[in-house]
């Protein structure tokens, strides 16, 4: 690796040296000094370094020319003799001065320099060394990066306000590459110094990646680590305006163009040039600029999140063409069928008939309008899927289906309408304000679990709110009847031959029972549970599906209260499981980076959705069951065509793991929450981010839309439930409010500052990070309950669940 470089460098170096040598032949002081040494001495004298000259002369005379120290092992064989001696001369000098420790280091350093593949640089270095000690010269390599980054940062910070938002994203990739370079070349200490000096300014946005990088300390780590390899092999994409890019290029080449005020002499000096050269190297090799014609002023502060990063691998590459922009990818996938799910015509007519009959019987003046509700209007602007687009279902409908549809219509009529948009400009103090609040905000019923041992990772309510299920870290699931009814299964000792009809079957039910039931079968923590939606809100669900760390999903029959099927296929813990909107099918997401589609009657997966670069943390079905959304630890969410198995949308913008998702009931939006404590709202049609909602102070565990898509409710580890106005524009409050608002969020947790138990303290990055956007309409703190599940009933009552966290866990 190192051999070719010094060899190639010989001619350039040799020429000036020989020239000086011939000129000063006559002054040669002692006979046994070689011509090169003399050349060096002359050179030193010419430059006026008399002491250095004297030192060199002394050393040469005392040692004699052959008394060379052991040269660096690998360089000896291939370097030309002249070059070799010249270098040794410098080393000698060094040895004299600083106690002999420089040699080893300097040789390795030089080797590293060589391996970096920039011969002219070294030549320049060596040529410009003068009499400066070798150690100092060679240690310039790490400082080079330090210097380069400092200047870049100064330049970015000193740039005009309008350019700064688009320049700031450059810092992060260059920082990463510099750090990785330093580690890879073994300058561990320099790398750590570099990290400590410059990481704080990047910490707010990139804390996760930075922490990961800080764990890499040896060259082998860099080679094996996934993220560092992605940095190495993929181009980091940055979006920039044309004029901004022009300025950057200007700075890189000339050192001019919007420099920082008072940047100092480092700028024009040698150091500055070398620093810029190293920045340029990273820019050339690892960055990709997406130069947009758009005006800089139109770029919002958070826009960089969507267009910056190692995007190429995050975007699925289908037919050979490289698409590196999420926008063009999303556009290339064409339109989606986001309309509501069609209902079979015969089922529809049957539903209407029943509704009409019931309207006659009930004599409820309102129920006569039910029939009108039954035919839901197809919203404009979305394409509705046809029956053939749906996943295959049994051709004929059953009584349960009719009941479900009838109930759906009635629930829709009885629904409480939530209109948070009326809240704008409403004063909470006035009585009218209170009334509007009541209209705009939901009632929330909190179910708190007590005395939970190791934790309850998941919980869910059935649609008819008759059952609650929770999965526990102790590998079991517990069911509760919320109506206080007894949960009974079947006796285990009956003869199947004795069952003739429904009544004889009912006789086999257990006689005694309690309102709670433990379902045992998993062998690892249960991470997700979901009730079968087939019976809707008309009847209790008949099945429960669960996912666990034991890499299985299990189907539980709620008639028998037993485990019916274990679905094996994932190789790793299954993080999430969800039923499709009509039951029968369900999807799982796993640590093995795939999501899978299953049908209850097959034990193997029907589809595998592969493409995420990391764990699939959550899966959700689109309300019309045509699409599946997945959220992943690679910080992206994707939308898949359920039947084709292809990715149709990719949502890039989170700066952390995507922890949970929710589709809006009208099928147009997807809300995603990430470990960056933000909730992003995406437009499915275009794949663009509509807005970013911030305010949570700890991880967000669950999201739910109200039935009219007007309100989003989120619950998380900061023990709060928050309500967001979906339709409002959001955005940051004015600056003056900042400290106040952050303080209030702390107050919400009901915690004294400095309390270690406060979950918000862990994630509090900086005050600016926790600013509540204006679309946060209400915050409801609980005492100490992290909210693991939020859910809306069909009538828009909000149900939340969580396990109470005892203050002292001892």
């Amino acid at each position: 690796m190192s051999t070719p470089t010094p060899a190639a460098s010989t001619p350039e170096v040799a020429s000036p040296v020989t020239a000086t040598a011939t000129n000063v032949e006559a002054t040669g002081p002692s006979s046994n000094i070689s011509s090169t040494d003399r050349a060096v001495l002359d050179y030193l004298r010419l430059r006026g370094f008399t002491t250095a000259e004297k030192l060199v002369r002394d050393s040469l005379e005392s040692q004699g020319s052959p008394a060379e120290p052991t040269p660096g092992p690998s360089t000896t064989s291939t370097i030309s003799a002249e070059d070799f001696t010249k270098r040794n001369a410098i080393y000698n000098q060094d040895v004299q001065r600083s106690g002999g420790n420089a040699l080893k280091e300097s040789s390795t350093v030089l080797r590293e320099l060589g391996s970096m593949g920039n011969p002219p640089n070294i030549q320049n270095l060596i040529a410009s060394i003068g009499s400066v000690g070798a150690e100092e010269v060679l240690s310039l390599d790490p400082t080079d990066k330090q210097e380069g980054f400092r200047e870049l940062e100064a330049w970015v910070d000193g740039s005009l306000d309008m350019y700064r938002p688009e320049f700031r994203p450059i810092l992060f990739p260059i920082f990463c590459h510099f750090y990785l370079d330093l580690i890879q070349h073994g300058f561990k200490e320099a790398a750590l110094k570099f990290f400590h000096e410059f990481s704080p300014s990047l910490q707010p946005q990139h804390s996760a990646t930075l922490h990961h990088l800080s764990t890499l300390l040896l060259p082998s780590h860099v080679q094996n680590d996934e993220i560092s390899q992605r940095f190495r092999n993929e181009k980091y994409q940055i979006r920039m305006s044309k004029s901004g890019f022009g300025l950057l290029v200007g700075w890189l080449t000339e050192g001019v163009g919007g420099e920082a005020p008072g940047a100092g002499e480092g700028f024009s000096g040698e150091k500055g040039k070398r620093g810029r050269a190293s920045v340029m190297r990273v820019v050339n090799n690892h960055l990709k600029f997406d130069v947009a014609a758009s005006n800089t002023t139109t770029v919002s502060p958070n826009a960089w999140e969507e267009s910056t990063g190692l995007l190429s691998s995050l975007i699925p590459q289908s037919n050979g063409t490289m698409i590196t922009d999420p926008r063009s990818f999303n556009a290339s996938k064409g339109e989606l069928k986001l309309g509501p799910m069609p209902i079979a015509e015969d089922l529809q007519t049957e539903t209407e008939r029943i509704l009409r009959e019931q309207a006659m019987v009930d004599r409820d003046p309102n129920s006569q309008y039910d029939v009108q509700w039954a035919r839901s209007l197809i919203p404009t602007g979305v394409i509705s899927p046809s029956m053939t687009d749906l996943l295959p279902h049994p051709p004929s409908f059953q009584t349960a289906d009719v009941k479900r549809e009838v109930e759906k219509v009635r629930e829709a009529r009885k629904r409480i309408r939530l209109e948070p948009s009326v809240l704008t400009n409403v004063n909470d103090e006035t009585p009218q304000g209170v009334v509007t609040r009541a209209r705009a905000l939901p009632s929330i019923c909190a179910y708190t679990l007590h005395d939970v041992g190791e934790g309850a990772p998941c919980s869910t309510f059935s649609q008819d709110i008759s059952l609650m299920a929770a999965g526990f870290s102790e590998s079991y699931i517990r069911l509760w009847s919320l109506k206080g009814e007894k949960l009974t299964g079947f006796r285990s000792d009956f003869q199947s031959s004795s069952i003739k009809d429904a009544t004889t079957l009912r006789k086999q039910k257990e006689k005694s029972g309690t309102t709670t039931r433990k379902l045992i079968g998993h062998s690892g923590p249960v991470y997700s549970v979901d009730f079968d939606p087939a019976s809707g809100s008309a009847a209790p669900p008949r099945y429960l599906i669960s996912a666990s760390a034991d890499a299985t999903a299990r189907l539980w029959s709620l008639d028998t209260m037993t485990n019916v099927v274990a679905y094996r296929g994932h190789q790793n813990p299954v993080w999430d499981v969800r039923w499709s909107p009509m039951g029968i099918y369900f999807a799982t997401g796993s640590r093995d980076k795939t999501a899978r589609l299953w049908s209850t009657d097959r034990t193997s997966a029907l589809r595998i959705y592969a493409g995420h670069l990391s764990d699939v943390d959550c899966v959700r079905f689109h309300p019309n069951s045509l699409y599946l959304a997945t959220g992943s630890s690679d910080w992206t969410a994707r939308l898949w065509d359920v039947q084709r198995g292809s990715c149709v949308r990719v949502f890039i913008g989170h700066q952390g793991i995507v922890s949970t998702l929710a589709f809006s009931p009208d099928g147009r939006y997807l809300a995603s929450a990430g470990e960056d404590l933000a909730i992003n709202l995406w437009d499915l049609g275009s794949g663009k981010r509509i807005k970013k909602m911030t305010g949570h102070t700890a991880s967000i565990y669950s999201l739910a839309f109200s039935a009219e898509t007007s309100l989003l409710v989120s619950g998380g580890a900061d023990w709060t439930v928050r309500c967001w106005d979906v339709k409002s524009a959001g955005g940051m409050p004015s600056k003056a409010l900042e400290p106040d608002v952050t303080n209030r969020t702390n107050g919400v947790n009901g915690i004294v500052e400095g309390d270690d138990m406060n979950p918000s303290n862990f994630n509090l990055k900086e005050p600016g990070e926790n600013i509540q956007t204006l679309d946060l309409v209400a915050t409801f703190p609980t005492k100490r309950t992290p909210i693991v599940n939020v859910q809306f009933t069909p009538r828009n009552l909000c149900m939340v669940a969580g396990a109470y966290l005892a203050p002292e866990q001892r």
Partner: protein
Amino acid sequence: MSKPGPKPRASATQLTGVYKPESIRDVAESLNIFSLSDQVAGALASDVEYRIHQVIEEAARFMRHARRTTMTTSDIDQALRVLNIEPLYGHFPHNPPTFHKAAPWPQPYGPGAVFFVQDEEIDFDRVIREDKITLPKGVRWTAHWLAVEGVQPLIPENPPAIPREHDMDGVVVNGKPGEPSKLSSIFPPTPPSSDRPSPIQAAKKQQQSQQLVKQVLSRELQLYYTRLTTALIPPSDDVKCIAALASLRHDAGLQALLPYLVRWVAEGVVNALKSGSQDDADGKVLSVLLDVIKAILDNTALFVEPYLHQLLPPILSTLLHSSLPPQHATRLRTTASQTLSHLLTQHSTTYPSLSPRIMKTLLLALVSTDKGGGTREGAVRGLMGIGKEAIRKGVVEGGGAKVVGSECGPGDQSSLVEAVMESFSVICPKSFNPTPLDIGDESDATTMEQLRDVLGDFFAERLANDSQQAIGVLAGQQV
């Protein structure tokens, strides 16, 4: 290649991570490898740290999916399992260890902060005796309303309300907890505790002080307090009132309420007197409040002494106020003096200076020139409450009777006069067969002279009817 001596850039090594080369060396020595070079140790330390981080990053996923914010040993076990490493058996997530920081290292080049797991010391005897082991109940749920139509109900399941933004302003600017002195509230600030928001977030204004009381007192006591005060005032239902007073007189466990009750009484008295109206209701209120004070004093379970200085003003105000509602005036003053007497008999032993001080106040009220009849009467009654000696000192020797007498016309039968006469009879009760002083008799004449001298003409005339009493009154003076 190893070189003797430490590396030149010693300062830079501090930047390395948490796992130190020294630890590697310790491990190596435990494996009988003594010649481990610095470089090897350093590289190994770096690598070990990287691997630890790998495991931790993996475990963090399990922690996140378990919806926890604390990593437990089970997360690490799961992580090791998926990384295809044998888990570390024998660690359980129950009772997560708490780490304690060791005392700082005495040497300058110490290894930095040292943490250790502190074992709990369990006293077997105690455990066996206390017999506290109970079976955990198992998981159960409770449901409550977190919000009703967008408003969070103030029920115990929900955390106390947060103050509105504009109330927070001052606190935020200070950056410090709001000083208790700033609070206009009557309630002491609550000490901060981990499971309850600190008072910083609470009260700044009166409305918040209402909320603060909710934090200080238990819910039951709050309820009791409101019930009690509403039963007593306005005094409408006698039965309720009597029941409330009885409860106050006999119930234990009200100590926490005492400051609030005292405050409430004081405020009630001030309000009733300040209004100046002479109507019936005020009089009733005052009498009820005096009853409350009496009840508080009667309750043996209460430790009243710290609050005596707060209890006295209401009593003395009632006693000495110039214009009490006329129908109740006498009764109120009598009751107040009785209460005062009661208070003094109970507490004068612990507060020897108490009665002199009160006497001084009463004397001032009695003798000073610009006081009304009501105040004077109250003072006399108050002195009666204190005792014989006080009356003698005040009314007889102090010239109280003289002052009162000079203000009364002949034949005056006002309550003030009556009060003074009563006070005389306290010193020396009326004789059963009063024999008037005989002017002619010489000894009686001197007595009369003395009476006129000491008590003034008015009262001398009055006392002249009963020679025995007159002699008694004077006798006390002469002693």
